[in-house]
């Protein structure tokens, strides 16, 4: 297992997550799984978004953006509450009248629990950036012959409170979603697995791709997970990003087959139910992996990596050469 990079140059390997807080790269908050981000962290996140977009530029993805909340009915239709009820986040709101408000205020003043005064609204927190895409495509009608390729990014929520800074409850996910035939979607998923390995090499990240499964809930969920692994539908790029450099899934490569196409009646031009696949970049975890590999001071990172991420001009940057490297990566 890779260890956190020494950020002080004295050979000592720090608890790298603690050093992120000490140095203001991340900002601690009182709720486990929530933290703020400092300037250095945000600069790396922006660099990663720009880099992945440059890699994907020639693909011609349509860029969409959605709020970090979505229709509760849509999430329910996706089967999320059956598969991942423990991870879902529902937005509850006060919906009462004056008497209810009086009771709420009374409870607040008397320091009583006010949870009962809030009721579930029609929106939930987005658990994966691609979820709002499927109903959007469904509403458009049949796909064109070439199918669809969508880029989307969003803050996502998963209720898994943890002191591990690599397991945030609220985090950003950038995704590319391919919708089309079984062959097209599998080719897309496999292309991004190759790209991701090259991307990790570029960024000097010690990653490894492994078959994985979604964390389905309960006994029935275990079977689903095993089937998902057996059919090799999901892969993850594991990188040192957790406490003491423990590996965490920083990217995922998912073939959904016709799961979302059937739920949302997304049809190809020939009337067949569309298949979907997506690649997801966990931007917080990828950023953590970079800090874990290269230390907490951006100035100490290898110049090439700073260039790839657009962090600063280092004097060695050759814009044409840089574009060439990234362009080559797009066609692996």
């Amino acid at each position, binding site marked *: 297992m890779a260890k956190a990079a020494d950020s002080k140059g004295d050979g000592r390997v720090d608890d790298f997550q603690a050093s992120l807080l000490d140095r203001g790269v991340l900002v601690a908050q009182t709720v486990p799984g929530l933290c703020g981000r400092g300037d250095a962290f945000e600069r790396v996140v922006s660099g990663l978004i720009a880099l992945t977009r440059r890699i994907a530029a020639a693909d011609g993805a349509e860029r969409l953006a959605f709020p970090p909340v979505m229709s509760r009915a849509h999430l329910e239709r996706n089967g999320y509450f059956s598969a991942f009820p423990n991870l879902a986040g529902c937005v509850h709101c006060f919906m009462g009248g004056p008497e209810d408000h009086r*009771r709420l*205020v*009374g409870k607040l*003043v*008397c320091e009583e629990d006010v949870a009962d005064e809030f009721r579930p609204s029609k929106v939930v927190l987005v658990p994966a950036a691609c979820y709002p895409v499927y109903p959007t495509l469904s509403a458009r009608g049949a796909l064109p012959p070439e199918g669809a390729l969508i880029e989307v990014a969003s803050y996502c929520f998963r209720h898994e409170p943890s002191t591990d800074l690599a397991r945030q409850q609220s985090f950003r996910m950038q995704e590319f979603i391919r919708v089309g035939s079984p062959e097209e979607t599998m080719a897309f998923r496999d292309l991004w697995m190759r790209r991701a390995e090259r991307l990790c090499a570029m960024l000097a990240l010690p990653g490894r791709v492994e078959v994985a499964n979604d964390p389905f809930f309960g006994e029935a969920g275990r079977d689903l997970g095993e089937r998902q692994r057996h059919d090799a539908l999901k892969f993850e790029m594991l990188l040192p990003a957790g406490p003491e450099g423990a590996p965490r899934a920083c990217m995922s490569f998912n073939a959904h087959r016709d799961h979302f196409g059937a739920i949302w009646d997304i049809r190809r031009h020939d009337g067949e139910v569309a298949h979907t696949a997506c690649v997801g970049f966990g931007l917080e975890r990828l950023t953590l992996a970079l800090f874990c590999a290269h230390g907490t001071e951006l100035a100490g990172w290898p110049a090439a990596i700073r260039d790839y991420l657009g962090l600063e001009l280092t004097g060695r940057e050759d814009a044409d050469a840089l574009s060439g490297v990234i362009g080559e990566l797009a066609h692996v």
Partner: protein
Amino acid sequence: MSDERLGRDAMLEQLRGLMAKVFGVAVERIGADTTPDEIPRWDSLNLLTVMIGIERRLGISVPPEALEGVRDVGGVADAILRHALNGAPA
């Protein structure tokens, strides 16, 4: 000490605790003779919040008009007690 006096002291204690929380001041700053001029956040809305807290804790509902003319915390306590005893403003 009379039962009435005990009732007033107990009411003052309830009020001091709630006012300290709602007005954002130390409970030691609030006594029976403390006036609105001494507490920057003592306004009609926050006083209403305090009264909602009294209703929640003690089951005594005091309409805003029962507090008209009160000059200090002791006056608020007296108004609440009068209302509780008589069921209507004095």
